């Protein structure tokens, strides 16, 4: 069963944070690097990337046949998606166990499996 893990948070703007928060963010960042290493090695992570910050995002939207290009991410929220991983595991509990080791917020979404369609 494949799931996508969406990771909350980004390193964008971290250098403007107060010292203690910056240190925490840096520690978490290192931790997330180790997480990827561990799960790539044992084959649970089959894809994924860290994303550049929301300041680099551009959104193309379509309304009434008109296409507009705007600056910024399309999800209007304080939370930002900072990266994602595609994982292949037995079930939701295994995905949950992996997500619990991630140093931050994670959304777990099962993928739509088109390969089962005939």
């Amino acid at each position: 069963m494949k799931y996508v893990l969406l990771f909350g948070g980004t390193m964008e703007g971290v250098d403007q944070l107060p010292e203690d928060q910056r240190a925490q963010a840096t520690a978490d960042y290192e931790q997330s690097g180790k997480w990827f290493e561990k799960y790539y090695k044992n084959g649970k992570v089959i894809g994924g990337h860290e994303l550049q910050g929301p300041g680099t995002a551009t959104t193309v939207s379509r309304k009434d046949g008109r296409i507009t290009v705007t600056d910024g991410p399309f999800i209007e929220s304080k939370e930002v998606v900072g990266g994602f991983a595609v994982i292949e595991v037995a079930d939701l509990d295994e995905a949950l166990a992996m997500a619990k080791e991630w140093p931050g917020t994670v959304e777990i979404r099962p993928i739509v499996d088109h390969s089962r369609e005939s």
Partner: protein
Amino acid sequence: MAGHGRDPADSRPLAGELTGSRTTTPAAVAAVFREEAGRLTAALVRILGNFDVAEEVVQDSLVAALERWPEQGIPDNPGAWLMTTARRRAIDILRRDRRYAEKIALLDHSTLPDDPAEADDRLRLIFTCCHPALPQDAQVALTLRAVAGFTTAEIAAAFLVAEPTMAQRIVRAKRKIVAANIPYRVPEGPDLPARLETVLAVLYLMFNEGYLSRGGAVAMRRDLAEDAMWLTSLVDRLMPNQPEVLGLLALMQLNVARSAARFDAAGDMVLLADQDRSRWDRDAIAEGVRTLDSAALLRRPGPYELQAAIAAVHAEARTWEETDWRQIVLLYDSLLRMGDSPVIRLNRAIAVSHVAGPQVALGEVNDLAMALGGYHLLHSARAELLEQLGEHELARQARLRALDLCQNPAERALLVRKQGG
């Protein structure tokens, strides 16, 4: 299904040829559903590997039974009757899909496991229904349906929700179980404590919902408090020596033991202080205390065990005045050490008023005004303490505030009576 191998369940008489000897009261039907539905669902999930279909066809068989049994009587082997009905329904559904050909063959030869100890999968079922990936209202509804054999209509009635809304909630949750591949498994190791806590929270919510509406105007086919208690003892049987399971069971038993005295002949709610203690069920209290003792023997007290201990102190006091309030304050202190909560602080303050007087208690209650300003019991507790201090006008104002905030009709009636007196 004629022509296929018939198993023992098939040889049971079906509609039209029932020789049911049991009386078909709603309580008797409920008792049968409770015993059979969970086993049946669990067995079918195992055979089909599909929670959604299994749960659905069991529900269909319960609805069919509700239609037929009142006229024809409860069959001699109701479990087999339900299994046959559910299996036929499953075959109907699965026939439409070629991928399930093998499953149909399996279904044709399946029976309910004869040895309940060997194949009681209901624990797995409970943990799946109470998976934290599901919203709590759906956890409650699914557990009632799949494990305790409630119909959707009964759940909707119990929670005062329109039936289509409840049905929708259940459909969504079941879809998520399948789509997100929520496993059908009892969690192990470090996951177990938190998962068990989720299960117990569901059972406690169910219990409170049933217990608080007891004696109320609405008569129900199923007694939610009774079913919650049954489910908790089922968890205890399937997962013995878990202190918090025993603690919660004791808490429920001790509350139910006193429930006859909670309402007077006119149907009005009676506070603990004013209850006729001769109407408490002494045998049930003794049973609750025994359950509590077996929890205490495990020496890992948790919040439910402590709340049960508080309930036991009340239950064992012959009069309100003889209540061991010091012990109750100490128990609340332990409870607060496990997790600070303003509601526990409020209850502790009420106990404190009996040990250190209303003035001290009022100070503690006032400290909670920020956290619990919208909670009617804070204001009714203030009213009570102010009354004791002779501050009748302030008491009256506090009671008015409580009335503004209180939703429960029985509690409102009580406040109105106090205001009048």
